[in-house]
C-alpha cells in the first residue's frame, strides 16, 4: 500500500513537471552552420509555442554567447521552427552548444537537449589554424579572427600585418582578436598571422588573408548601334573596388550574358537590338544594376567614313568624297562635319544629305596644303557624332599673286627708293618669280619699266627720274598680280616741325589729327634717323577712321633714334602730316663733346665745343654740365639746359690753373666728359698800374715828410743834434786857423770782429727756395737772411750784443761773415756785455761805421774804450752809418762834405 502511494506521488510530480504549464520542449533541434557567413541556423519542431528561449554557449568554457527570447513562426513547408544567428566569431573557432525551450509568457518548457556545433579546435585536428582563412570585407568594417594553436603548443601572439592584436581566449587552444575600421588592403590582401612567440613573428604557425575594398559602383549605361543591327553598351566604371584577382574582381553581365572586359573601356555588346538592357556589376561585396532602353533609330551613331579622296582640286575649292562601310547608311539622312586644317587656320563646316558621301569645299587658299577629316550623324533623331575619319591631305592649285604693298621713301629731294613688302606665302599663291616696277608720268604719258628678281624688294629712284607714279606687280607661274601704285611725295614734304615721341613699353604711341584728303587711310613709316641709302624703312597702312597707332617692332634698339612719320593716303601723293623722333630707350651719350677749347680773355675764360654726332648721342641731349676744378675737387660750375648752346664764359677768375670738364647729358645720364686745362697769367696792365700808383704814393709821402722835417728842423736838430759846447782851453791858447790835424785813432771806431765760430755756423745757412720767396714776398731776401742769422744767434745766446747793434743797421748787410760791434759809441754803461778786445788791424776796417765826433787829444782814444763820444741818444735809432773808405782823399773829402752838408741841413745852413 505504501509503495503504491509513493509511486502515485512520483507519477503526479512527474506529470506536473513534464507539462509545466502545458508547454512541450522543442524536439529534434538541429544545427546548420554557414561558415563563410558565420551564420548558425537552428531548427526544431514539436512545440506549439510561438516564443522560445535560445541559449548558445562556448562548449569548452561554458561561456554564454547568446541568451535571448525570440518569436518564431512555424514554417509550414518544413514543419519546423527556424532561428538564424550570426556569430561575430568564425564558427570554426570553437565548439558551440545550443539549447532551446518553449515559452508562453512566464511558462517555459524544459530545455531541449544541447546540440553541439563542433569547432576546429578539437584534438583530432591538431595542427595550427586561423579563421576565417580568406575573407573579403568592405572598407571600414570590423572583423574577428581566431587562432587555434597546434596541439601541445602555447599561444604566442596575433598580428594584423605588422600590428599586434589583443587576443581573447575562447577555448583551450583558441584565441580571438578583433580588428576595427579596416582600411584598404594591398592587391594580394592583408595577412593576419598567428605566432607561437610573444613579440615576434619569426614563424607563422597559421594565418589568414583579408581583402578590404568596395562594392562596384558603375554608372551611365548607354546603349547604341553603329550598324543598325547590333547593340553596343558602354558605362563608366566609377569608384575603384581595390579588389583584384579572379575571386574578387568585379564581373559584369548584360541582359544576363557575361561581359568579357580586359582592362579596356567598359563596353559590352549584343548581336541584336533588344530595346532594353540591364547591366549587373558584382563582386564579393555586392552588386549594382543599371538599365537603359531606347528605340533603334534614336541611337544610331554612324561609323567613320572610309576611303576619303579628293575628287577635284582647284585653286579656291575642292571636292572630297568617301565611302560608307554600312550599306544601311545610304538611305539615312545624314549630317556630316568636315574639319579643314591648313598651316594657319582650321575650320569646321557642316553638310547634310541622304547617304551623304561627298562635299564641296569652298573658299580655299591657292597653293595651300590642307588636311580634311569627316564625321557624320543621323540628321533625324540625332544621337551622337560618329568617329572622325582618317585625315585626307591635298593641295590646292596656284593662282596669280596678290598686289604687293608699295611705298616710296624719299630721303632727299634727289634721292629715294621704291619699296614693296615681300609677299607672304598666303599672298603669293605660288612661288614668286619676279617683280616689275613701272615709273609712269600721266602728264607726259611716259613710262619706263624695270623687271627685278624675286629677291629684290626695292628700287632706287632720284628726282630726275621721269614719272610721278610708281606701279609694282608681282609674278608667279599662275600669272601677274594687279598693279600696286603710289605717287611720289612732293619735294617739300619734309619741311614740317619734328616733335618727340616716347616709347611706352610696347611701342611708340602716335596720334594725329584727321585729314580730309585721307581717302585711303593713313600710312605711318619709321626708320633709323640719319640712316643712309640702305636704310631699312618700315611702313603700315591704317584705315581712314584711325588716327592713332602704336608702332611696334622687335627691331627697335636702345640708344637709337628713330624717325616716325604719318602720311595721309589719297589718290594723289602721300602728304606728310606729322613727324616724330623717338628712342625706344635713351642711353647716356657714347662719346664726349668734341672740339672743346678754352680761351683766356682777361680774367675770363671762354669755353667752346661742338655738338655730339647723332649716332653717338643715344638720347635727346638735354644740355651740358660744366665742371670746374681749381684747387679742390671738381664742382658743377654751370648747367646748360639749352642743348644748342655750345659755349660758356667763365668770368673773374684769378690767376692760376683751372680745369674745365664738359659733359653732355640725356635722361639716361652724362657722357664721360671732356676736360680742358688753362693757366691764367697775371694781368700786366693792372700790374703796371699798381706800380705807378705805388710810386706816386711814395713820392707824395716823401714830399710830405721832407716838408714836415724842414718846417720842424729846429726841433729835429735839437732832438737829434743838440749844440755841443765849445771846449774851453785853459791858458792862452789862441785859436789858430791852421789845419786841424784830425787823425783818426789807430783803432777803428768800428771793430770788425772776425768770429771763428761763425765759420762753423755758416753751414746753418740754407738756401731759401724760390717758392718761399713767393710766400714771403713782402720781406727782402737780405733781411730775411739777416734775421735768420740773428735768430740763430739769439737762440744760441752766444752774441746777444750783436742783435742790438745790427738790427738797426742795414749797412752791415754785406758783412755776412762778420759780427758788427760798435765800440766807443754811446755804449751804455749799464750794458752787461763787456767790450770785445780789438783783434783786427786798421787795414781790416771795411763796411760802415757810425757817424761820431771825436776828441783827437783824448787819451781815452788809445784804449779804444771811449774814443768816440756821440750823442747821448741811443745808438740804435739815431746813428747813421757812413761809408768808411777813408784811405782815399776823395773818400775823406766825400765824407767830410757829406758830413758838412748834413750838419748844415740840420742846422739850417746852406
Amino acid at each position: 500500500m505504501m509503495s503504491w502511494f509513493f509511486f502515485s506521488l512520483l507519477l503526479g510530480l512527474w506529470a506536473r513537471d513534464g507539462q509545466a504549464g502545458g508547454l512541450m520542449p522543442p524536439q529534434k533541434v538541429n544545427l546548420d552552420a554557414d561558415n563563410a557567413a558565420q551564420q548558425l541556423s537552428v531548427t526544431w519542431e514539436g512545440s506549439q509555442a510561438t516564443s522560445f528561449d535560445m541559449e548558445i554557449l562556448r562548449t569548452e568554457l561554458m561561456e554564454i554567447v547568446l541568451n535571448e527570447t525570440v518569436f518564431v513562426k512555424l514554417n509550414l513547408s518544413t514543419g519546423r521552427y527556424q532561428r538564424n544567428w550570426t556569430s561575430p566569431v568564425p564558427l570554426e573557432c570553437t565548439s558551440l552548444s545550443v539549447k532551446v525551450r518553449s515559452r508562453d509568457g512566464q511558462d517555459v518548457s524544459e530545455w531541449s537537449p544541447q546540440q553541439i556545433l563542433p569547432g576546429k579546435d578539437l584534438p583530432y585536428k591538431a595542427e595550427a589554424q586561423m579563421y576565417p582563412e580568406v575573407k573579403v570585407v568592405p572598407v571600414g568594417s570590423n572583423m574577428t579572427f581566431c587562432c587555434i594553436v597546434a596541439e601541445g603548443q602555447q599561444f604566442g601572439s596575433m598580428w594584423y600585418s605588422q600590428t599586434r592584436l589583443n587576443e581573447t581566449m575562447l577555448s583551450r587552444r583558441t584565441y580571438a582578436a578583433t580588428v576595427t575600421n579596416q582600411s584598404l588592403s594591398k592587391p594580394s590582401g592583408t595577412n593576419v598571422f598567428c605566432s607561437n612567440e610573444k613579440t615576434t613573428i619569426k614563424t607563422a604557425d597559421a594565418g589568414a588573408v583579408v581583402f578590404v575594398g568596395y562594392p562596384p559602383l558603375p554608372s551611365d549605361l548607354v546603349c547604341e548601334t553603329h550598324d543598325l543591327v547590333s547593340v553596343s553598351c558602354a558605362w563608366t566604371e566609377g569608384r575603384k573596388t581595390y579588389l583584384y584577382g579572379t575571386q574578387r574582381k568585379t564581373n559584369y553581365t548584360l541582359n544576363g550574358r557575361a561581359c568579357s572586359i580586359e582592362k579596356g573601356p567598359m563596353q559590352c555588346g549584343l548581336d541584336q537590338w533588344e530595346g532594353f538592357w540591364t547591366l549587373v556589376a558584382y563582386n564579393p561585396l555586392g552588386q549594382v544594376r543599371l538599365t537603359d532602353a531606347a528605340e533603334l533609330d534614336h541611337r544610331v551613331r554612324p561609323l567613320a567614313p572610309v576611303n576619303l579622296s579628293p575628287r577635284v582640286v582647284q585653286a579656291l575649292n575642292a571636292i572630297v568624297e568617301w565611302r560608307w562601310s554600312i550599306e544601311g547608311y545610304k538611305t539615312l539622312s545624314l549630317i556630316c562635319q568636315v574639319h579643314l586644317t591648313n598651316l594657319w587656320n582650321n575650320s569646321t563646316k557642316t553638310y547634310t544629305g541622304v547617304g551623304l558621301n561627298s562635299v564641296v569645299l569652298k573658299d580655299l587658299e591657292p597653293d595651300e596644303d590642307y588636311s580634311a577629316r569627316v564625321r557624320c550623324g543621323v540628321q533625324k533623331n540625332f544621337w551622337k557624332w560618329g568617329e572622325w575619319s582618317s585625315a585626307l591631305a591635298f593641295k590646292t592649285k596656284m593662282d596669280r599673286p596678290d598686289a604687293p604693298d608699295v611705298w616710296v621713301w624719299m630721303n632727299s629731294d634727289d634721292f629715294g627708293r621704291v619699296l614693296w613688302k615681300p609677299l607672304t606665302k598666303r599672298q603669293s599663291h605660288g612661288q614668286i618669280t619676279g617683280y616689275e616696277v613701272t615709273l609712269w608720268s600721266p602728264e607726259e604719258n611716259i613710262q619706263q619699266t624695270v623687271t627685278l628678281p624675286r629677291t629684290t624688294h626695292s628700287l632706287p629712284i632720284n628726282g630726275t627720274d621721269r614719272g610721278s607714279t610708281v606701279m609694282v606687280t608681282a609674278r608667279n607661274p599662275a600669272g601677274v598680280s594687279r598693279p600696286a601704285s603710289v605717287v611720289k611725295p612732293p619735294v617739300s614734304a619734309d619741311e614740317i616741325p619734328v616733335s618727340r615721341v616716347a616709347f611706352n613699353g610696347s611701342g611708340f604711341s602716335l596720334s594725329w589729327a584727321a585729314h580730309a584728303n585721307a581717302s585711303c587711310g593713313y600710312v605711318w613709316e619709321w626708320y633709323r634717323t640719319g640712316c643712309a641709302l640702305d636704310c631699312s624703312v618700315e611702313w603700315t597702312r591704317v584705315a581712314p577712321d584711325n588716327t592713332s597707332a602704336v608702332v611696334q617692332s622687335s627691331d627697335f634698339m636702345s640708344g637709337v633714334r628713330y624717325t616716325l612719320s604719318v602720311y595721309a593716303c589719297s589718290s594723289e601723293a602721300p602728304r606728310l602730316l606729322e613727324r616724330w623722333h623717338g628712342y625706344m630707350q635713351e642711353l647716356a651719350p657714347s662719346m664726349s663733346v668734341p672740339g672743346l677749347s678754352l680761351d683766356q680773355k682777361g680774367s675770363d675764360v671762354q669755353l667752346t665745343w661742338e655738338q655730339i654726332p647723332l649716332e653717338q648721342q643715344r638720347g635727346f641731349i638735354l644740355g651740358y654740365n660744366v665742371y670746374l676744378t681749381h684747387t679742390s675737387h671738381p664742382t658743377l660750375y654751370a648747367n646748360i639746359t639749352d642743348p644748342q648752346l655750345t659755349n660758356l664764359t667763365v668770368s673773374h677768375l684769378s690767376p692760376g690753373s683751372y680745369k674745365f670738364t664738359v659733359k653732355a647729358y640725356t635722361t639716361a645720364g652724362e657722357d664721360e666728359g671732356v676736360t680742358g686745362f688753362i693757366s691764367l697769367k697775371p694781368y700786366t696792365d693792372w700790374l703796371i698800374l699798381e706800380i705807378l700808383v705805388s710810386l706816386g704814393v711814395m713820392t707824395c709821402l716823401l714830399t710830405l715828410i721832407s716838408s714836415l722835417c724842414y718846417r720842424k728842423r729846429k726841433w729835429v736838430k735839437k732832438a737829434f743834434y743838440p749844440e755841443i759846447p765849445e771846449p774851453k782851453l785853459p791858458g792862452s791858447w789862441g785859436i789858430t786857423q791852421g789845419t786841424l790835424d784830425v787823425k783818426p785813432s789807430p783803432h777803428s771806431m768800428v771793430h770788425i770782429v772776425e768770429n771763428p765760430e761763425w765759420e762753423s755756423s755758416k753751414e746753418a745757412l740754407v738756401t731759401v727756395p724760390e717758392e718761399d720767396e713767393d710766400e714771403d714776398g713782402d720781406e727782402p731776401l737780405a733781411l730775411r737772411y739777416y734775421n735768420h742769422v740773428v735768430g740763430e744767434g739769439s737762440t744760441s745766446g752766444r752774441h746777444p750784443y750783436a742783435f742790438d747793434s745790427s738790427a738797426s743797421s742795414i749797412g752791415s748787410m754785406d758783412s755776412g761773415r762778420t759780427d758788427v760791434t760798435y765800440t766807443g759809441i754811446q755804449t751804455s754803461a749799464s750794458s752787461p756785455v763787456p767790450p770785445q778786445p780789438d783783434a783786427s788791424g786798421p787795414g781790416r776796417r771795411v763796411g760802415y761805421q757810425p757817424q761820431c765826433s771825436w776828441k783827437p787829444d783824448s787819451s781815452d782814444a788809445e784804449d779804444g774804450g771811449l774814443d768816440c763820444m756821440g750823442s747821448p741818444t741811443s745808438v740804435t735809432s739815431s746813428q747813421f752809418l757812413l761809408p768808411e773808405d777813408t784811405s782815399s782823399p776823395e773818400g775823406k773829402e766825400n765824407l767830410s762834405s757829406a758830413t758838412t752838408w748834413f750838419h748844415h741841413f740840420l742846422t739850417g745852413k746852406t
Partner: protein
Amino acid sequence: MAEQGQFEVDTLLDMPAPGQTRTGRAVALARLLHQDCTHLLDLYRVRESLSSDHTPAGDRIVSLSPSSPDLGLEEQVQLLYSALRMCLGLLECLIQREDEEMEGELEGDYEQARKTVRDRLGHLLHSTKVLLETEEDVTPDHECTEEVDGVVGSFRAKMWTYRVLLELTHWADSASQTLHVLHREREGTDEI
C-alpha cells in the same frame, strides 16, 4: 617589345665571356641566379610585409641533400641538377598560379624579377646538363597539383610561395658553391 628586349639582355648576360670555360660559365650563371633569387625574395617579403627572419612553417619542399659526404662531386652535381629541375617546376607552377589569381595586377618589379629567375634558371640547367654530359631532360620536374598549396589567395598559398622562393634561393646558392668546387677540380683554379 619590352619583354623581348629584356630577354635579349638576359641572353647576352648568360652568354659565356670570351675564353670562359664551361664550368666557369656555369658558376657565373649560378651566382647571377642567386642574386636574382635573393632580389625576388626581397620583393616578395616587401609585398607581403614579411620580415627577413620570418621562417614559414612546414617541411622543405625540395628535400635533397647535395652535401652528403658519401657522394662524389659528379654525383653532387647530378643531385644539384635534379634539385634545380624541381625548383624550375615549382617556379613555373608559382607563376602560373599567381598569374591566374591576380590577372596581371601584380607589381611590375616582382613580375619582372620572377621572369628573370625563370630564364636564368633554365640557362643554368642547360649549362649544368652540358657539364654532366647527360641526356636527362631539362624540363621542369613538378606538377601543379599538390593540394598542400592551399586555396588560391589564402595564407597557406602565400606561405607555399614563400617556401618555393626560399628553396630557389637556397639551391641557387648551393649551385654556385658546388659548381665552383667542380670548376676548381676540373680547371685547377679558382678563377672564373
